[in-house]
């Protein structure tokens, strides 16, 4: 991971790397213009997230929280404004460069798990490392480690459809962590889980944040889930309404 951040720094040598903020949005706009309809999903959002933060982004649907998460995850790029990841302006990166950032610096957890179907747990967790060219022995070591961390080492050979929702989300977490990203992005991670399993997953994420110091940004619309975070951001109409630490 370090080599990629170094290479990021090289790409923009003049950029000042301000403080400990791992994520810095400055006046970010996202405008969808289909010609007939013009939707301003984000309207000048500025935000800084420090290393080791656990942030919950809340808001009604259409408030822009998912758009913001997509931009933070380098799945999308802002129409206007600057997004600095670890001090590097990634808002102008090409699709390939953004793919590398997603591979190395960011882990995703989705509401619908998004595991590769008909592909074993082991291979699902292995997938991100195939795109980073990790050696076979290193891959084996990391998969075993990641499955240990998420607590399902015995399920390595199982297929996703043989697992419960909570187990599938743990596999997704293992996959997200396997390249040791600095940031973990979670989009409604408990949206498809019952309350007991939700609690389990949230406790797990909280521990991950506390013990491993991983920066966690989570989108949710449930206050209960947001309460696990150390910082809650309310969004409305593409802007930040409130931003409070708990």
């Amino acid at each position, binding site marked *: 991971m370090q080599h990629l951040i170094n290479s990021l720094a090289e790409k923009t040598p003049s950029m000042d790397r301000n403080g400990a903020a791992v994520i810095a949005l400055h006046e970010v706009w996202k405008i969808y213009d289909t010609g007939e309809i013009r939707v301003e999903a984000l309207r000048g959002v500025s935000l800084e997230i420090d290393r080791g933060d656990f942030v919950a982004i809340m808001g009604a649907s259409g408030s822009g929280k998912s758009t913001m998460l*997509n931009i933070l*995850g380098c*799945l*999308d790029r802002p129409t206007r404004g600057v997004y600095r990841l670890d001090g590097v302006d990634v808002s102008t990166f090409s*699709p*390939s460069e953004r*793919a*590398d950032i*997603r*591979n*190395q610096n960011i882990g*995703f957890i*989705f509401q619908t798990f*998004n*595991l*590769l*179907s*008909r592909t074993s747990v082991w291979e699902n967790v292995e*997938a*991100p490392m*195939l*795109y*980073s*060219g*990790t050696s076979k022995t290193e891959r084996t070591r990391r998969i075993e480690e990641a499955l240990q961390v998420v607590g399902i080492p015995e399920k390595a050979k199982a297929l996703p459809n043989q697992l419960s929702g909570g187990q599938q989300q743990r596999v997704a977490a293992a*996959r997200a962590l396997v*390249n040791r990203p600095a940031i973990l992005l979670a989009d409604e991670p408990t949206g498809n889980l019952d309350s007991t399993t939700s609690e389990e997953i949230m406790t797990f994420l909280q521990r991950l944040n506390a013990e491993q110091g991983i920066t966690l940004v989570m989108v949710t619309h449930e206050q209960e889930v947001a309460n696990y975070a150390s910082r809650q951001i309310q969004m409305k109409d593409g802007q930040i309404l409130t931003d409070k630490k708990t």
Partner: protein
Amino acid sequence: MNYWMILKISLKALSRNKIRSALTMLGIIIGVAAVIATVSLGQGAQQQIQEEIASLGDSTVWVRAGSRRSWGVRSASGTMNTLKVADFEAMLNECPAVKAVSPSARSMAQVVFGNQNWNTRIEGYNELYPDMRNWTIAQGSFFDDSQVKAAARVAVLGNTVWQELFAGSDPVGQTIRVKNLSFQVIGTFKAKGYNTWGRDQDDIIIVPYTTVQKKFLGGALHVESGLVQAVNARATYAAEEQIRALLRQRHRLGPFQDDDFMIRNLSEIAESAEATNRTMRILLSTIAAVSLLVGGIGIMNIMLVAVSERTREIGIRMAIGARPSHVRIQFLSESIGLCLLGGILGLLTGIGISTAIAQGLGWPTMISYNSVVIAVLFSAAIGIFFGYYPAHKAAALDPIEALRYE
């Protein structure tokens, strides 16, 4: 990034839809099989034509009597009684480009030995025949000029006739019956095999031409055809011209009269065989090209289906860090894999077909190393050509859209 692993992912995806993959490959299999069969048939035939011209001696020329014309209806060539034995003697004596001549007379006949019988061609020549047509004596000997003069009832058997009548036992000195006449077998020929037109060259009995004329053709003095050998291959054309001039003079033909004979050289015959062969090859190549095209379109179609079926998978892969180029390689290697596998199966099928044709129909085939390499490269090229668009479409997907795809 790990290309080997991406290839493994592709192969896995193919093996998940076995029937679909097999059906998609069918077009390529048929196309490549047709290419291989065409090329091996064509090359085999070509090689055989060349060998045959060499074995016939490319310096030999056939002289045939002209065809009879009565009330505008022409009969087969050789039906005019214009060609005499003396004409051939004159050619040998007066044409400097002619090295050897042999009048010829033929007949079909039932041949009997003991309780075996066989229907074959009886051809009469003189004692020079084996040298002119590159025949080799296997057992016994050929007849000499005194036996020709005496119209001796002696016969030399082709390999097939020997096998059929004598089942491999020594025939020299034995007596066979042809049209109720007894002939003494004095020798056999070494096998020559099939010629370009599929005729068994060894299914033949050679006797003195004088014997055929006297015993089978009622003592006719004319001959329907004869074989002329030029002094060398380059002199063939000169020999033809000299023979034409001589025969026109001997037959007292005026300047406005047509020839009452025909001269054909063997390379012309070989050329016409080659032309037939070429038509056949063009036909098969067209079939091959069309089925490869159809196969390629089938591949493209199935890859487009695969891309839209697996949009979500593509989205997931992009989210976890697959570059567009990784996605492109994954889908390209799937279509190349399909085509290569189809190409290899087609190759085996084509080799099977060629072998079956060679053994079943007795046609010559030759599977060349080149055609194998070309078939494999060509099928890979089809995979790239028809797989590129679907793979590009997959690579150009927007990760967010792809992840949302249901």
